[in-house]
């Protein structure tokens, strides 16, 4: 046996094959393979960085951007995920891209898997998941995700985004001219609106009133007229017309261009037999509808977002 092994070694060392053995020993002895691997990955990543301008513009207003090349973003995020499979931020961004590429199931899976970190909710994944369900009319799932979004740790979300290399690349784009905090506040307001709308559709009027009150009390939120509006609608549904009337009036006081509160006030007047006033409010509502203000209804203009 010993003789056989010796013969094999002798044969091997006298053949060209030995250069492969030397190469192997050389690599494991002198080369920092971990560093080599890391640098090759970094190079591949650097070469794959897409231009984020179009994606940023799309996130702000999907109608303004035509023929967006989603493939470069998908490839880039997939490449990062192949190196860092559990990166929550990248999963979320890939989910966003997948959704707009028509791969809804993949997007849902990615948003779900990136919705929390160590028990703390990540706002954007829950928000996008909620918006996605909302657009499909899946009110219960939408309400669940949107509730997680409003309950998520916004500080954690901001820290995660600010620390993420890919977000730094996005922020470095000349197209990025926004305040991260303002965008987050705006998205939170939208989350409340969609949550209220989902709960309203589920006929959970008491929850709508409760969450509306929380939203109204939150100083950082905007579009508070919508919270009054949904609270008003809920009171209307449960037959408390006076409260409904006051809340809808309050909504109009904040935002006078939204046609919907006028319509429901007209309903209340009609039920009270004050047809003249009802007619007036209906006319106002109709006139405002004719203006086609893109902001209204609030829930229709909400889209998936990544910042």
């Amino acid at each position, binding site marked *: 046996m010993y003789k056989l092994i010796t013969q094999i070694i002798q044969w091997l*060392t*006298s*053949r*060209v*094959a*030995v*250069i*492969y053995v*030397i*190469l192997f020993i*050389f690599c494991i002895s*002198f*080369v*920092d*393979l971990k*560093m*080599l691997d890391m*640098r*090759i990955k970094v*190079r*591949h990543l650097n*070469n794959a960085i897409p231009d984020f301008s179009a994606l940023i513009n799309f996130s702000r207003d999907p109608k303004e951007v035509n023929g967006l090349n989603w493939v470069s973003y998908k490839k880039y995020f997939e490449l990062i995920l192949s190196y860092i499979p559990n990166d929550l931020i990248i999963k979320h961004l890939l989910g966003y891209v997948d959704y707009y590429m028509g791969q809804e199931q993949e997007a849902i899976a990615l948003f779900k898997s990136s919705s929390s970190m160590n028990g703390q909710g990540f706002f954007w994944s829950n928000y996008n998941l909620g918006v996605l369900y909302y657009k499909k009319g899946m009110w219960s799932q939408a309400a669940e995700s949107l509730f997680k979004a409003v309950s998520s740790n916004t500080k954690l979300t901001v820290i995660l985004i600010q620390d993420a290399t890919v977000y730094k690349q996005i922020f470095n784009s000349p197209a990025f001219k926004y305040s991260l905090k303002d965008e987050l506040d705006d998205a939170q307001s939208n989350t409340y609106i969609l949550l209220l709308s989902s709960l309203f559709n589920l006929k959970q009027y008491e929850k709508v009133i409760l969450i509306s009150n929380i939203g109204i009390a939150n100083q950082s939120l905007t579009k508070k007229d919508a919270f009054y509006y949904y609270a008003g609608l809920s009171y209307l549904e449960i037959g408390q017309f006076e409260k409904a009337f006051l809340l809808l009036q309050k909504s109009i006081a904040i935002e006078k261009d939204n046609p919907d509160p006028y319509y429901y006030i007209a309903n209340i007047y009609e039920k009270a037999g004050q047809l003249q006033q009802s007619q007036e409010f209906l006319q106002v509502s109709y006139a405002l509808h004719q203006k086609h203000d893109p902001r209204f209804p609030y829930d229709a203009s909400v889209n998936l977002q990544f910042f």
Partner: protein
Amino acid sequence: MKSFIDKFFTNTSRFEFLFLIIPFILWVFCFRYFFTGHLWIEADAISYANHINFFTDNLSKGVYPLWDPAWFYGAPYDFFLRRIGDVNPFFFLIILLKLVGVPSATAYLIFLAVYYFLAGLAFYLITRFLLVDRFYAFTAYVLFLFSSWGSEIFYNYIIIIFVPIIWFFYFLLSFSRSPQKVCFLGMCLCVGLVVTTYIPFFFLTILAIFSFLYILFYGKECIDFFKRGFAFLRKNKIFTAFCVFFLLSSCIPGLIFYKESKSGEFALPNRHFGADNSSAVAVGLENVASGDIISHGFFDRIFDDHAHIDMGDIYLPYIFFLVLLAATCARVNKLIFFLLFNILALSLITITSAAGAHRFLYEHVIIFKFIRNIYYFFWLAMLPMGVLLSVAAFKSLLTAINNSSKKIAWLVYIIFCHLIFALFLSAHQGVLTGAWAAIFISLVYFIIYIYCENKISFLAGFFIILLAVFTQSAQVYKSLDNKLFQVQHNDTVYNNQHKDDVDEKISLYYASGWFSILVNYIHTLVLEGYANHRFIFYDNVLPYKDNSEFFKTLGTVMSSMTNMAFVPETESGPGDWKKSPYTAIQADIDPVASGKLSVVRSDANTWVLKTHLSNSQFLVINDNYNSAWHAFINGHQVHLFRANVSFKGLWVPSGESDIVLRFSSPKRYLLQFALIALFAGTFLYLLMLILSFPRKRESS
């Protein structure tokens, strides 16, 4: 047919030139679009082409350019001369071609092609020397010629130093066998050519590793080599003295350049960032890592996606890998080990941070502080040595087949190896049909070799190897051409778009030291608007101290063209300053139109001006200042000021004046021309020795 084969065997040496020229013509065919002007060179090759053209244009007019007035408003040209190696006698080929009416771009490309052929020729000769067989030398030559070295010459500039390096090693090997004047002079000329460039350190490193390993592997031969070499030097004392003189002379430009690089007269901000050496050419450690072999995707397409191959990507005909694979069970020899260890030692350096070798060398060996694009080691040594190793293994394999009686066993083994390689390739994406054809042709070659008569297989070998390499390479380079057609067209659009983007800061690779400071403080638009007026006359001259407040003032003065120039307080005295309230608000920005000034003559190094002034005024020439510029008015030397931070300024008296501004000293020009003559003379002497060498050998 038989008589032809016999004739071929008896006169192989006569066919040798044909062996070399046919593949070269095929190589030219692969890159024909560059030569026809449909595609143009890229990246670093562009600036080298421009500088070589600038140099040869000036030289053909009898001007030795030491200053480039067009480079960011003027910069010393020595840096570029060191990059191109100004004393190279082959530049006369470009001058000659231009003289007979060949356009500059074509002349340069012909020079590149000739130079590349010379590299291939040296590689052929080295392989023939080491493997003692024309067939293997031919195989190595063809593999080298059609490797991506061929595209690298249109992308890069290292062919300029590669040719002298590879010829040096050929002469060294020849000298080791038979010490002759021709070999020694060849070595000296090659070293001289490398040393006159600013990057001789690649050569020094390759030579150091080669020498160290040569001593380790060939200790006995090494002692013998030194004995014979020493005897040769003693026998040819005058010749040796001339060679020593030649080598010492060739070091002069490098030493002058090194001194200048420490003076602060020019700057390389990007390159120098993070360097711990005061020389402007020194490179920071992090900057080196960005130029190592891992930092670029050179190897990404070695087996994949040849349809999208790019300039700089490494490509080797698959025969190289097939041969290496099939030779696995062939006998290894000392040469293979020697080449392998050379490659491994160099690869340790080229991967920088992924091994400790480079950091150690950077910290302890000064030359490594000046090497930036460390991946050049791959092109200069690792690739040629790799091809040589593969062909040495090929020889070992064919010898084993030849000496064996088990033909069937070899055939099965060879088919197995080809199948394994084909299987390996099938796992990769975008493998072109040419690659599969190359594998098939290779298999055909081995079958012929195993079963046919030696003479037939030998003759067929030349054609089959060439066919296998060319079939694959032609397709790969066609893909490259297609990509370049697409990219270069788009680049034109892209560049045109960006020309309008004037708000961008000027990005300086190399510039006059003062100008590199100026661009940091003055807005690009202001600076360009100001410096586009070549001559400006001022009535008021004020001293200044470097601080940010001053640069604000300067920016305002430059944009409004106020009648006020600035000279450094430390480089001027009160007698040089003047402020008068009774002067025009604006400076005279077009004295040529107003008849105050006329340009009598100018070239790269000289301005000859004539002025006619009613009163004494301060003339600012918006060409960068350098302490080597001298000014003369009516034959008398006058003080040349550094005006407005970076430009030239001088007081011009009233009346008519003849002004001459000259860069550097007559001694320096004499030295430059003398060096050119020395190198040209040595080259002619070498040619004479080479031509007489075969006759001497025959007579002996």
